């Protein structure tokens, strides 16, 4: 893999150039809560020691809420107007390895057979500039789902902090290579030995479970008290799904409608909500919180894997860090692992 060096100053110039060249650069905010559109070099927060932001950046490719059609009623003849989707050149700057693969993972469900253009128009052509992660708390478990704090998987370009002022810039994909081409002037020749040494010193979170073992156990233990035990604690707020970089369930509802006009929206939804699967008849196939929690775990560690050959989890730990009642997904899955 080709490797260059970019100084912090040059990173600022580079980002300024990107913005000038009509790229939409998305970076983590300084309060470590959210991701936002960067308007200038002053907004750049690329720090390998940062905690993963409270919320992932998935909303930039999978909007929290967005219109899928507008309608107008003209004397009982309906005109359907499609929302304009401007082609955006998105650049995600400073994605930790637990974020970098999120678009790739979600892309599978948005593209099997039917293709969701609302996702694709944003996701296709987006560039991920990842950064090695040197943060770790008890909720981190990327190594349990096939990632690591130092993996370049999912990134087109990957930053490794060399010292206070310099990053190594690894050119991971062909797309990344093409993308960086016009900005060569900000790069100087790298020394792979140094970045390798730095990466080797980063401590991995402890591996808590084997996904293959967990998946197999889930196949054979659809009915198990562990789900009800967690379900009894869960308040069904859906925070876990909204904070997750790869949860992708949504609702379709008509909003702001009256007789003459309105819009149909696609909104984030969560499998932990009681109404999520409620039938019109009153029957609910997942009528208890335990069954809904089982869905959450099984979707992530079995169904998505069966269907798309991906674990629907990046080990970022956001769901656990933000859980108002202290449910730790890694703890639950580690317990499953110990049962298997």
């Amino acid at each position, binding site marked *: 893999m080709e490797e260059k060096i970019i100084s912090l100053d040059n990173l600022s110039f580079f980002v300024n150039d990107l913005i000038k060249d009509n790229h939409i650069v998305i970076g983590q905010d300084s309060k470590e809560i959210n991701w936002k559109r960067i308007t200038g070099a002053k907004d750049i927060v690329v720090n390998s020691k940062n905690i993963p932001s409270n919320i992932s950046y998935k909303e930039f490719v999978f909007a929290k809420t967005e219109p*899928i*059609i507008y*309608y107008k*009623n003209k004397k*009982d*003849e*309906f005109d*359907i107007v*499609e929302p304009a989707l401007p082609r955006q050149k998105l650049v995600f700057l400073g994605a930790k390895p637990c974020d970098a693969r999120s678009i790739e993972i979600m892309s599978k*469900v*948005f*593209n*099997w*057979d*039917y*293709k*969701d*253009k*609302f996702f*694709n*128009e944003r996701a*296709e052509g987006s560039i991920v500039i990842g950064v090695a992660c040197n943060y770790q708390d008890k909720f981190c478990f990327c190594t349990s789902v096939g990632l690591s704090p130092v993996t370049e998987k999912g990134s087109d370009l990957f930053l490794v902090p060399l010292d206070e002022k310099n990053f190594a810039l690894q050119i991971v994909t062909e797309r990344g290579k093409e993308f960086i081409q016009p900005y060569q002037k900000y790069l100087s020749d790298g020394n792979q030995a140094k970045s390798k040494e730095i990466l080797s010193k980063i401590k991995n979170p402890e591996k808590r479970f084997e996904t293959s073992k967990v998946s197999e156990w889930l196949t054979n233990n*659809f*009915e198990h008290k562990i789900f009800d035990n967690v379900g009894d604690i869960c308040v069904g707020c859906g925070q876990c799904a909204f904070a997750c970089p790869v949860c*992708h*369930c*949504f*609702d*379709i*509802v*008509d909003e702001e*409608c*009256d*007789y003459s006009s*309105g819009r*149909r929206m*696609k909104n984030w*939804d969560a*499998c932990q909500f009681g109404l*999520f*699967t*409620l*039938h*019109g*008849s009153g*029957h609910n*196939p*997942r009528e208890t919180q335990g*069954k809904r929690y089982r*869905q959450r775990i*099984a*979707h992530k560690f*079995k*169904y998505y894997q*069966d*269907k798309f050959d991906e674990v629907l989890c990046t080990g970022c730990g956001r769901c656990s860090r933000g859980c108002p009642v202290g449910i730790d997904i890694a703890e639950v899955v580690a317990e499953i692992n110990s049962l298997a």
Partner: protein
Amino acid sequence: MSGSNIYKPEMMEITDIVQETSDTKTFRLKFKNESTAKSFSFKAGQFGEYGVFGEGESTFCIASSPTRSEYIECSFKQIGKVTTALTRLRVGDSVGFRGPYGNYFPVEEMKGKNVVFIAGGIGLAPVRCVIWNTLDLRNDFKDVTIIYGARSFNDLVYKRELKEWKERKDIKTVVTVDPGGEVPDWDGEIGFVPAIVEKVAPKAENTVAIVCGPPIMIKFTIPVLQKLGFAEENIITTLENRMKCGLGKCGRCNVGNVYVCKDGPVFTYAQMKELPQEY
């Protein structure tokens, strides 16, 4: 890769409405756009998303046969927001439609075999689709038996067609109501569907059974069919779950790793048995 908007409905016009029961209606719908009407095709068992602007969309099967391609029909019970809005519509009004979605009944493989249709309540809607498909190609199939039941006479849907099927000599039609659900001049059977199946079902040899209805009916009918010798592969049913997209994206209709909207709604009992009990 991006292409068209998969959530955009096609506009259809209601050309006929039948009040099936006090709370159930059947709409006949035609595409407003002629080229859509020409290019549209579907197979028996597939479903669609039917929408009323300002209220939302609901999922129903296409209840008419693909052999009658100039229109589609859907039957629905007034139960929530969208179906209440649909109920208010009149002939000439517009309905949004997305589809056809999902898999379908193996009509081609059923050719040359006997077919027994078993339905309960509004579960006759998806079965009606494949019944007419079969009857419109009558010579391709051997013996055809229809067994239909509802809680009461008033809950029987497609009454006009039930009469037509009963009068036909080339099929056997048995209609039943639950005990207590009959009316004074009732000339059909009285009893629950599984019991009637046991009494009148054809022999299992070279026969396919299509079973749709409330879960409780399916639960008690399948053991009867098995007792009669039907193989699990020859018992075919449909699952339904709440859906929003119908396209395998929104994430709510799955039963285990199976999306009802894409891998279903049609399943053989052999396939259903493999699924976790979550439907």
